[in-house]
């Protein structure tokens, strides 16, 4: 199959890739660009480990063709920190021990970030519904919910400089 040119913007950086059009977005991000924060889990739109933001919306990158993401702004877990400072949600995950094995973490954080962008004052139940598309097999849900809740309540602020 003849490779096609794809221009992809990930974390504000533009990349030119030559790919087979069947390449999935998660493959483009991990295997072609080399950003391995995004995890490849179930590959069937179930687990959410591959969640990235496309134009600010949480999407499962195992179920999007890379070609379909051309011209959009993609954000991965690597894109959350600013000038070496972790984003509030990342700090909260660390403080609350919101992971065990860590495989679901980057997807969970991306989903949480998109959720918090839309919901400034979520209830605990809304947070739980908000992460319905992400599976944690270490059953760390309670600490994850607490981390998101603490971020929503403004206990972690963004370091601008």
């Amino acid at each position, binding site marked *: *199959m003849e490779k*096609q040119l794809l221009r992809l913007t990930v974390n504000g950086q533009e990349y030119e890739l030559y790919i*087979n*059009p*069947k390449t*999935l977005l998660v493959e483009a991000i991990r295997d072609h660009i080399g950003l391995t924060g995004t995890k490849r889990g179930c*590959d*069937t*739109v179930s687990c*959410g480990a591959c*969640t990235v933001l*496309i134009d600010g*919306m*949480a*999407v*499962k990158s195992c*179920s*999007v*063709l890379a*070609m*379909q993401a051309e011209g959009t702004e993609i954000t991965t877990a690597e894109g959350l920190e600013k000038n070496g400072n972790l984003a509030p949600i990342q700090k909260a995950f660390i403080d609350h021990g919101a992971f065990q094995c860590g495989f679901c973490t980057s997807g969970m954080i991306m*989903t949480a970030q*998109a*959720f918090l962008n839309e919901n400034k004052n979520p209830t605990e139940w809304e947070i739980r*519904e*908000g992460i*319905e*598309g*992400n599976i944690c097999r270490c059953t760390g849900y309670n600490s994850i919910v607490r981390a998101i809740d603490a971020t929503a309540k403004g206990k972690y602020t963004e370091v601008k400089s």
Partner: protein
Amino acid sequence: MINDFNYLRPGTLKEAFAMYAEHDDCKVICGGQSLLIVMRQGMIAPEYLLDIKRIKELDYIKFDKKEGLKIGATTIHRAIEKSDVIKKNYPVLVAMENKLASIQVRNWGTIGGNLAHADPAGDPAPVLIALKANIKVGGAKGERTMSLEDFFVDYFETALNKGELVLEVQVPPPEPKTGAAYQKFNLLESDMGVVAAAASVTLDGNGKCKDARIVLGNAGATPRRVKRAEELLVGKALKESLFADAGKIASEDCEPVADIHASEEHRRHLLGVLTKRMLKKAFDEAKA
């Protein structure tokens, strides 16, 4: 593994029609939330993939009191879920979308793609059929509109002809004294429904049932109406015992499969219970 295919990305609807007419072994992708799974399983291996996700002409939600609701095919589920005008006029659609898969899927998956995929376990179809929706399809040779009920032919098969795309879903204006409800039975919140039931009830001036629709999901090859139960209700003063009778009919007038998630017998039982409950819920809403 996904097969190698030629990727086509039309910029306009007209271009899409032309490309689709030109290529024989061509499959349409929009959100691809279902399609990419079956392609990965090797169940479909098209030579061409036509990507209509970016056709902005089909991305809209319009509402008019006389015309009703019109949703373009490439509208994402999340836009329907968050639409104020839909929430106000067709709350059951928002409730259904809210339980459709996960937020990530609703952010990328589209209403047209969902209907064209024709999975009998799909959530939107039973609700839309209960709301008497039509579907507009079309291609290079022109457009046509049919009832959504007639659009579904068999498992994953629709009435789309070669070269035709789903263009628009149309829902008639909400009738007064009408209620509608939908529920699926599933083990995990974001799963496909094991079975599902949608119901709508319209009352007349005397509080009797003027019209009723009962539509079952994953109870056979296509979403199916339970007309025998609908006929039982129309013209009567509705009450619990009638809903129970309608539920019993629903559990008889269906053809659910048995699989790893549930036996046929269990599915029939669930369909009866859900039908009864959804009729009650729709009735209570119609009375209010």
